[in-house]
């Protein structure tokens, strides 16, 4: 029972990070009908920027309590600029091209970002500076650390704020209008390009925070971390119903749970044949299963085939 609860908590924490990244995929998909393949790399760049700026800030004697929000802001700004640039360079010129074209540029962007990061930050694992005591709290044998608690609470808060933004503000209304029908939104005076740019920036800001969370949780960052994380977050978005914000949140949490419970129990269930080293396979199987049996996802509506 204790193992179960422990895996449950680990899964929820991991899942809330997936959810944040998945939101970026789902927002872009909702508006442009495009899989932003390079989104995982934005997460990675966010983590790298945060670690670098943290090191500089802490090295100059800035107090950790101030340094953490500062580095988050730096990472978010950097990633927002990156997200804007990606949309501008790789997607906007191809908005009316066949679907294959933006997908291929996205792969290109992803490779370029990965290798740039490798050139700048090196091939090795980058340690996340340790500055606040990572106290493990124990509740009846189940351990949850400060960082995990912080990640979970912060992620939920961010999701709530995003929902408010999309449902209550003028920008949110414009985003929903563009997602519904670009032409009609244009006729109603919505500046489509601005809304799309802002959507990319919003998603990238969330990605930056997710990157910080992941690297703080594991204590390290790596130029290759964005690939798998991005793929899993995409799976989460599909699981929840791509294009649907609440779906992405639910999908992220569910995927996190499946993964951590699956990795915890697969050894027992398969009689030791499969071990927890198959953890990464779950996401792919879920992705295939969802796409085959319920392509609209848990909360999504049926997506019409676009020829």
């Amino acid at each position, binding site marked *: 029972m204790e193992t179960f609860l422990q895996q449950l908590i680990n899964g929820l924490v991991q899942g809330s990070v997936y959810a944040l990244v998945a939101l970026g995929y789902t927002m872009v998909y909702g508006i442009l009908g495009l899989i932003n393949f390079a989104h995982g790399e934005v997460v990675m760049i966010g983590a790298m920027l945060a670690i670098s700026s943290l090191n500089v800030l802490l090295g100059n004697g800035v107090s950790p309590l101030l340094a953490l929000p500062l580095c988050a802001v730096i990472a978010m700004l950097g990633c927002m600029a990156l997200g804007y640039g990606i949309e501008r360079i790789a997607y906007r010129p191809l908005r009316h091209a066949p679907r294959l074209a933006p997908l291929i540029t996205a792969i290109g962007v992803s*490779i370029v970002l990965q290798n740039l990061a490798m050139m700048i930050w090196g091939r090795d694992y980058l340690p996340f500076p340790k500055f606040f005591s990572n106290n493990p709290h124990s509740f009846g044998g189940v351990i949850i650390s400060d960082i995990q608690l912080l990640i979970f609470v912060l992620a939920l808060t961010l999701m709530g704020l995003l929902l408010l933004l999309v449902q209550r503000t003028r920008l949110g209304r414009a985003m929903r209008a563009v997602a519904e029908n670009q032409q009609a939104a244009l006729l109603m005076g919505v500046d489509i390009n601005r809304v799309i740019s802002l959507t990319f920036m919003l998603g990238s800001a969330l990605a930056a925070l997710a990157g910080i969370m992941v690297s703080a949780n594991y204590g390290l960052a790596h130029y290759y971390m964005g690939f798998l994380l991005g793929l899993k977050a995409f799976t989460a978005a599909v699981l929840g119903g791509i294009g649907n914000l609440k779906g992405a949140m639910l999908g992220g949490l569910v995927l996190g749970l499946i993964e951590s419970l699956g990795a915890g129990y697969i050894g027992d269930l398969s009689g030791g044949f499969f071990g927890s*080293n198959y953890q990464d*396979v779950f996401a792919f199987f879920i992705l295939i299963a969802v796409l085959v049996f319920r392509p609209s996802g848990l909360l999504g509506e049926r997506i019409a085939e676009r020829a």
Partner: protein
Amino acid sequence: MQNAPEKRLHKLLHSRSFWVCALLLLPFATDALLGHGWVRILDFAMLYIMLALGLNIVIGYAGLLDLGYIAFFAVGAYCYALTGSPHLATAFPLSIEGGVHWPFWVVLPFAALLAGGFGILLGAPTLRLRGDYLAIVTLGFGEIIRIFLNNLNAPVNLTNGPQGISRIDPVSIANLHLNVTQPLFGMEIPSVHLYFYLFLSFTWLVILASKRLEKSRIGRAWMAIREDEIAAAAMGINTRNLKLLAFAMGAAFGGASGALFAGFQGFVSPESFSLMESIMILCMVVLGGMGNIAGVILGGVLLAILPEMLRHSVIPLQQGLFGKIIVDPESLRMLLFGGALIVMMLYRPAGLLPSRVRRRELGSDEMAEKP
């Protein structure tokens, strides 16, 4: 008006016998001019061309973006490795002492068939999906295969995990062992040259098959599906079966080249089959010109040779300029590939040597589909 020598040159460049001679002499010329190592690079270039042509069937003809193509290469390679090395015998005490060691002409079709089977296995559940979903699922499939290859060393040691399988039999055809220098008409033909001729003949076969397929009823149906699936279905094309066939065909070519790779290399391990390899083959197809055989070959040659040239020029250049290596050629290569993918899609979406249909489809605005 062309004058006589130009005309003769033109005729020469279009004669088949000229090209056959040139290709037959190529390894010797390379050996003499650049050194032994470059013939090996040529061999790998041939393998890449075969892979790119196989992927071209899936992407170029049928228009299905497959990002996990290297998985089929892996299936073929491991198939050859398991049947051609003592590993299987050590893993399963029941099988024949020292491994099964099937002859080349048995393993090759078997590897192709097995890879084709995997293609159907992947295609069957996913082909209903739209293009971009298909891309992600195939990418996931490629990773799954790699993870399994990495981890299937316990509890049953099938793949020997990350260490890979070594001591694989070299290719030998009718008692001609390709791993040793063979005498021919008083000449000594080294092993890498022999493999070059083997790969060359297989590449020729793949080209022939691709050409025939392109013009056939099946090929035309694939292109109809690529252009407009709904219209194709309305014309009575069984889109599901034909898409499956494209997947299986492409996979079978991948599997066959995988078997050749394993025989050539004598060693296989999961790290040869990473996502980056899939992307590299995709780059070859996209850069060269999707759907056009000559374009794909050009893309394959360029991308297989360029990294080696980079390796030979970037390191000395940096050492000369800065006294140390600042940018390693591997990441520079990937950086250039990524950049090339973006630039190509923005400015020349149909590739360096575009196919005529594809150019019409991707090139002009009025033909492009509306979002």
